[in-house]
C-alpha cells in the first residue's frame, strides 16, 4: 500500500475539520477525495504532507509509519496545493530549477529535467517569463510540474482543476492519467463529481470531516439501493400513477420526474412486458423505455444527502458537542 491512514482527526478549536478518517491507497492507484467545500479535504492533505499536525491517527507510506515525523517521508511525495505557491518574481524555468534544488537534485539534472517538464506541459515559450505574468491555467500546470520534478512515488493534488479553463483542465487530467500509467500513485481531492468519475479508480466521499463511503466506481454504483433504473416516457403520468405502480409491482419504487416521465427503481432486473400491460390497461401510451445507469452523482446525492448545487457554497460544518 502506498498510503495507509487510520483514525485521522483534526479539530480547529471546537470546529471539527476531520474526524476518524480512514482509507488506504494502493501503489499505482488514483484515489479521489470527493466532497463539498469545507468538507476537510485540504486539512486531510495538509496532515498527510506534514503541513498540519493531526490531533490523532496514524499515517503510513509504503508500509512504514511516518506519523511522528512526516518530514522523513517528504522526499517520497510531490504536492500540488489548491493555490499555486511558486515564486511570482522568478521565471517559470527558475521556479522549476529552484524546486529541483530543494529535493537535492544536482545542477545539470535540474536544468535538463526543468526543460523536459516545461516541454511536456507546453510552457516552453513562457519559460523565461515571470511566474506572476502567467494565466491561472499556466500557473496550475507549472505548479504540477514543480510537484513532480523529483519524480515522487506519490503525488498529492488539492483540487487540481478548480477555477481554471476547460481546455487546461482537460489537459491536466490527461497529464495526470499519463503520470499514473507510468506508475505514480495519485491522491487528489475535488468537488467535481465528474472529475472523480473520470480520473479515479477509487473514491472516498467526505462530508463534514467524515468519510461516508469508499469504494471503486463499480462498488459505489452497486451500493445504490436501486440497482436498476428504468425511465419511461408516457402520454400521461402523475404521482397518483406512480403510487399505483409501486403498489402493483413488488420491489419497485416509482417516481414521477415530471408529467409523462416516470422513473422506476428496483433491485432486480425489471420485466418490461407486465409493465407495458399496466399502462395499456389504463389506455396510456408508452413511447420510450430505457435503462438508466445511475451516475456517480446519483450515488453521491443518495449517500451523502447533499444536493449537488450545494457543493460549491460553503458546504457543511461539523461542531463538537
Amino acid at each position, binding site marked *: 500500500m502506498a498510503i495507509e491512514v487510520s483514525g485521522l482527526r483534526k479539530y480547529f478549536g471546537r470546529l471539527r475539520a476531520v474526524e476518524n478518517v480512514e482509507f488506504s491507497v494502493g501503489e499505482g492507484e488514483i484515489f479521489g477525495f470527493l466532497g463539498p467545500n469545507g468538507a476537510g479535504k485540504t486539512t486531510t492533505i495538509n496532515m498527510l*504532507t*506534514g*503541513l498540519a499536525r493531526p490531533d490523532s491517527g496514524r499515517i503510513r507510506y509504503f508500509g512504514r509509519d511516518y506519523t511522528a515525523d512526516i*518530514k*522523513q517521508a*517528504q*522526499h517520497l511525495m510531490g*504536492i500540488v*496545493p489548491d*493555490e499555486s*505557491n*511558486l*515564486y*511570482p*518574481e*522568478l521565471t517559470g524555468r527558475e521556479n522549476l530549477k*529552484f*524546486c529541483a*534544488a*530543494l*529535493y*537535492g*537534485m*544536482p545542477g545539470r539534472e535540474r536544468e535538463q529535467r526543468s526543460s523536459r517538464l516545461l516541454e511536456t506541459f507546453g510552457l516552453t515559450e513562457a519559460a523565461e517569463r515571470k511566474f506572476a505574468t502567467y494565466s491561472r491555467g499556466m500557473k496550475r500546470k507549472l505548479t504540477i510540474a*514543480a510537484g513532480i520534478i523529483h519524480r515522487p512515488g506519490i503525488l498529492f493534488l488539492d483540487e487540481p482543476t478548480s477555477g481554471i479553463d476547460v481546455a487546461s483542465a482537460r489537459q491536466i487530467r490527461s497529464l495526470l492519467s499519463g503520470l499514473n500509467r507510468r506508475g505514480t500513485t495519485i491522491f487528489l481531492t475535488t468537488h467535481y463529481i465528474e472529475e472523480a468519475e473520470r480520473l479515479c479508480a477509487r473514491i472516498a466521499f467526505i462530508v463534514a470531516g467524515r468519510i461516508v463511503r469508499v469504494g471503486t466506481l463499480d462498488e459505489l454504483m452497486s451500493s445504490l439501493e436501486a440497482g436498476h433504473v428504468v425511465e419511461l416516457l408516457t402520454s400521461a403520468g402523475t404521482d397518483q400513477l406512480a403510487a399505483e405502480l409501486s403498489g402493483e409491482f413488488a420491489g419497485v419504487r416509482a417516481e414521477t420526474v415530471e408529467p409523462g416521465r416516470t422513473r422506476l427503481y428496483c433491485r432486480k432486473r425489471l420485466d418490461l412486458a407486465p409493465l407495458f400491460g399496466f399502462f395499456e390497461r389504463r389506455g396510456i401510451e408508452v413511447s420510450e423505455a430505457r435503462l438508466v445507469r445511475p451516475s456517480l452523482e446519483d450515488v453521491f446525492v443518495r449517500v451523502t444527502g447533499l444536493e449537488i448545487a450545494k457543493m460549491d457554497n460553503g458546504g457543511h460544518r461539523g461542531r463538537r458537542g
Partner: protein
Amino acid sequence: MRHWEAFWCIVLKDMRTYYLKPPNLSWGILFPVAWTGMFFIRSQTPVDIRMILPGVMAMSILFGTTSMLAVTVTFERKGRSFERLLLSPVPLRLLMLAKTGGAIFFGIVNACIPVLIASFLIDISGIGWAALAGSVALIAVSSTFLGLFIAVSVSEVFEAQTFSNFFRFPMVFLCGLFSPWPHCRLRSSRSVICFPSHTVRISCTMRSTVRAACRCG
C-alpha cells in the same frame, strides 16, 4: 550533502530576489544611507565621525536585517511559497538557517555602508578589523533573530515593518547615539543593539586594547 545544495539555492534566491525589493530598499538600504549621511554631515570633526560610526553601523544592521526578514519570511508566508519550503525534505533547522543566512549577510553588507562612506571622510586606519568583524557578525545574528521573531508573528509585510519599528526606534535612542547619559547606557547595555554597538565602538577606537584582549582570549 544533498541538503546543502538546497540551502545555497535558498540563500542565493533570497539575495537575488529580495535584496532590491521596495520595502527592503527603503528600510534596509536607503534609510541607513540617509541616516549615515545625516550624522556625518552634522559631525564637525573627524574624531566625531569615529565616535558616531559604531552606532550608525549597528543601526544599519538592525534596520537591514529586520526588513530583510519581513520580506523573506512574512512575504513568502503570505504568498504561501513558504509552505513549499516546509513541504520539502530540507530539515527545518537548515531551512531557518537558510532563511536567516541571507538576512545576516545583508546586515553585514549594510554595516559596510557607513564604513565605506566614512573612509572617504576620515582616516580609518587604526580600527581593530577582526574585533569589528566579530561584533558586526554578532549584531547581524542577534538582530536577525529579533526580525525572525517579528516576521513570524504578523501576516503582512507592512505589519512586519511597523511592528519592527516598535523595536527599532527605541533602540536608536538606547544605543547611545543621541543620549550619552551614563544611566541610560547602563540600562541599554541589555538591548540587542547596545551591547554589540559598544564592542564595535571599542574596536573602532582602541585597536591596541582589543588586540591585546583578543590575544588573551
